[in-house]
């Protein structure tokens, strides 16, 4: 018997209309865990380097995490991977809620989708019964609306639905896949739409078995209790009404304008009242004692949920207030668009209008006020009408299509992907490396374990490290103790810190843990319930595999390196690894490039950011090295030189 995983994938070919339950290789989890790890392996094995993201040969993979469905709490992030038309690289997306665990209870570790349906369809999975069904009656329906309609149609309120809205149907690059009030962004909704797949509805009534039941349950309960009573995990922003951090420090508009003294008491009181006047409740995800999502229902509008910075992006891009975000978020959720990149795309268009690169003729009938303009452009984008058709291709592509100097307004992307609107003064070396080399595209998916800022006094630092259980290695305590000024830290420490930050995300995204109880959250307070020192035990108890810290770390390195190889094979090189030029006001090109070289060497990559044969072989990825040599990306090793 397989433990924790089901040992089966669901292979769906939408062109042929076939669905097949296929057993997976038993030793795969040992090397690639599950989730993003084993998905990267599939993308490497099955999607040839030159495949256009819009080709039927592109795969869209929904993965459960290796530990989904076990009693371990807050293990519910479903992982979606494909190739993105925006970056032409691997798309990596996550969503919370209930979908992944349900899929596992239905008996599958993954859904692997290839091909394209002739017209809109949905996939209905009820344990062994899998059907591709007509979805033309759902055309144009909102994403959560679709979930509701399918539950009624299937006469089962317990099905879990992931669906695209109009944006996905129209292949908008910023399209998301929505599930209840959770959302998968960063370039996956567009491919689901391209495959003409409106939704997936899953119901599972099978058991997930675990290897060492009593011990795992005891561990799970210990962690559950720690979480419930701890302020060190979950999203504190769900209840912290003081949001001066984002409003005073992040940039407004098209990631341009900082408003340092914006926040004040009167505003906070007003917004707090608005929130509680319209909030139904806070909800959580499967088997998690936290409740990070605020569920809002404005009069006349659709009910929606938000987390974290998600409530600020629209009104900050529009120079408006929270009531505007509350008004547009529900609409955007039903259309299914990413609330991080979409507001930037709209603000970018309005900047072009102001600069005269676009003119009034491009915006026929557009209202004069910011509120009206945002709604107008949102409609144009999700329908791909007029200028919206160009904007729907994201800032970077739209800038090139518009031309005429528009390229200069594409100032906040890396690898063609919209970055968080952060504009700061002095270069922060760790952040430079994370933004430059990250392949999860958003800094929130890379940062997270080592604190963002040093503590002012030695006593505070000492106290912090004394309680710091999460460190994978004692050296991080030393780094922290000796760290006094943000940008003043050794290159060696910087490389280690970035590596650790990355490691936790790659591990979470392969096991299914939520970043708010692990990879993203340690940077704020250090007290996360899951970390390098207890995750190996959790894996061992759940799966029966032998697992310890060094082995898990090596798994991280293997998965990380494989993802790099997947992207390198599609053309990713050193020249692409540049944070937005204005991310910091004060830059030092020479130092940055030296640091980048050091980091590549630290990772075992060559000076162009390509993993070397030696690195690949050490990680059991010789097959990758062979392929990279065959295609001329790596220089073939000279006999006897290794």
């Amino acid at each position, binding site marked *: 018997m397989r433990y924790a995983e089901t040992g089966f994938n669901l292979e769906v070919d939408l062109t042929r209309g076939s669905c097949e339950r296929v057993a997976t290789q038993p030793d795969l989890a040992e090397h690639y865990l599950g989730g993003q790890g084993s998905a990267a392996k599939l993308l490497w094995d099955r999607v040839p380097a030159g495949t256009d993201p819009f080709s039927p040969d592109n795969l869209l993979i929904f993965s459960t995490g290796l530990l989904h*469905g*076990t*009693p371990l*709490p807050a293990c519910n992030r479903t992982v979606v991977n494909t190739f993105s038309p925006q970056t032409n690289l691997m798309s990596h997306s996550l969503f919370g809620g*209930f979908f992944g665990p349900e899929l596992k*209870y239905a008996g599958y570790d993954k859904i692997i989708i290839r091909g394209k349906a002739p017209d809109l369809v949905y996939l209905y999975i009820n344990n062994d019964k899998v059907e591709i069904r007509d979805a033309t009656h759902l055309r144009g329906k909102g994403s*959560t*609306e679709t*979930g*509701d309609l399918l539950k009624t149609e299937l006469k089962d*309120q*317990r099905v879990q639905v992931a669906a695209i809205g109009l944006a996905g149907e129209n292949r908008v690059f910023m399209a998301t896949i929505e599930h*209840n*009030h959770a959302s998968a962004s960063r370039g996956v909704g567009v491919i689901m739409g391209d495959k003409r797949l409106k939704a997936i509805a899953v119901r*599972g*009534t*099978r*058991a*997930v*078995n*675990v290897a060492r*039941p*009593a011990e*795992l*349950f005891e561990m799970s*309960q210990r962690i*559950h209790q720690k*979480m*419930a009573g701890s302020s060190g995990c979950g999203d504190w922003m769900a209840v912290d009404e003081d949001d001066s951090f984002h409003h005073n420090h992040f940039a407004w508009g098209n990631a341009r304008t900082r408003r340092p003294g914006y926040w004040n008491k009167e505003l906070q009181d007003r917004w707090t009242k608005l929130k509680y006047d319209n909030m*139904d*409740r*806070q*909800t*959580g*995800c*499967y*088997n*998690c*004692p*936290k*409740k990070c999502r605020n*569920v809002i*229902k404005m009069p006349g509008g659709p*009910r929606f*949920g938000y987390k974290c910075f998600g409530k600020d992006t629209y009104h900050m891009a529009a120079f408006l207030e929270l009531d505007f975000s509350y008004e547009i978020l529900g609409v955007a959720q039903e259309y299914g668009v990413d609330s991080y990149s979409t507001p930037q795309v709209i603000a970018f268009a309005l900047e072009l209008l102001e600069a005269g690169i676009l003119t009034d003729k491009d915006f026929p009938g557009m209202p004069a006020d910011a509120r009206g303009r945002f709604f107008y452009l949102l409609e144009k984008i999700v329908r791909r009408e007029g200028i919206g058709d160009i904007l729907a291709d994201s800032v970077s592509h739209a800038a090139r299509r518009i031309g005429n100097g528009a390229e200069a307004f594409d100032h906040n992307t890396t690898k063609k992907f919209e970055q968080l609107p952060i504009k700061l003064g002095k270069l922060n070396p760790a952040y430079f490396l994370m933004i430059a080399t990250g392949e999860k595209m958003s800094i929130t998916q890379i940062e997270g374990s080592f604190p963002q800022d040093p503590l002012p006094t030695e006593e505070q630092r000492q106290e912090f490290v004394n309680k710091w259980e999460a460190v994978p290695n004692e050296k991080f305590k030393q780094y922290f103790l000796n760290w006094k000024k943000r940008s003043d830290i050794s290159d060696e420490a910087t490389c280690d810190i970035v590596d650790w930050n990355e490691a936790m995300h790659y591990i979470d995204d392969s096991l299914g843990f939520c970043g708010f109880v692990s990879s993203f959250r340690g940077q704020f307070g250090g007290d996360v319930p899951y970390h390098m020192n207890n995750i190996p035990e959790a894996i061992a108890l759940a799966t029966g595999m032998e697992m310890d810290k060094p082995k898990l770390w090596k798994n991280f390195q293997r998965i990380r390196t494989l993802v790099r190889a997947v992207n390198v094979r599609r053309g990713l090189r050193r020249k692409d690894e540049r944070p937005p030029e204005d991310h910091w006001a004060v830059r030092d090109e020479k130092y940055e490039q030296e640091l980048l070289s050091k980091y590549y060497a630290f990772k075992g990559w060559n000076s162009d950011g390509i993993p070397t044969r030696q690195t690949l072989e050490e990680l059991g990825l010789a097959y990758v090295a062979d392929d990279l040599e065959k295609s001329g990306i790596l220089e073939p090793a000279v006999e006897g030189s290794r």
Partner: protein
Amino acid sequence: MNPEMNTKTVQEILVDVDKCTGCRACEMACSAFHSNPKFSSINPAKARIRVVSNELTDEYVPVFAGNHTKSGCDGRHVYTIDGRTYSECSFCRASCPTRDYFIEPDSHLPLKCDMCESTPPLKQPWCVEVCGEGALVYSKREVKREEPSAAALGQIESGLQALMKQHGMEAVIARLKQIGREK
């Protein structure tokens, strides 16, 4: 004659639907505890608690598995409470032929909450244990109950004798046990 007074234990789980976050940790824990061997498998479909949730209508109702009923009901009443609408099914504890809820998916036998029967007894039921939000609260109290009088006991005695004569002792005891469990 004075009725004799003694006490019995009443166990209750108090449900506050407003506090429920919809996390379904309760389902997870219930199914784990009732798996064999204990905690060896997780399957919320086998839980004896079901969280009825609907994100669109903001409906989150934990329901405990009650008695099995052979026929489904045709009533589909809708309740509005505090501006939120709930279908009658949202609160119904029965396992019934209309839905596959509270039916063991492998054996197709009805499931029923046993308040986590266990020797030694649990401190509190598992679903309550994992409900971090206090949507489920366990209460155990001793209530005084009146013992029937000697005359009443005599009546019961002769009634039972008659029944046993007619149906046999085993059938009567089995039925009594079942009634006891259902109560």
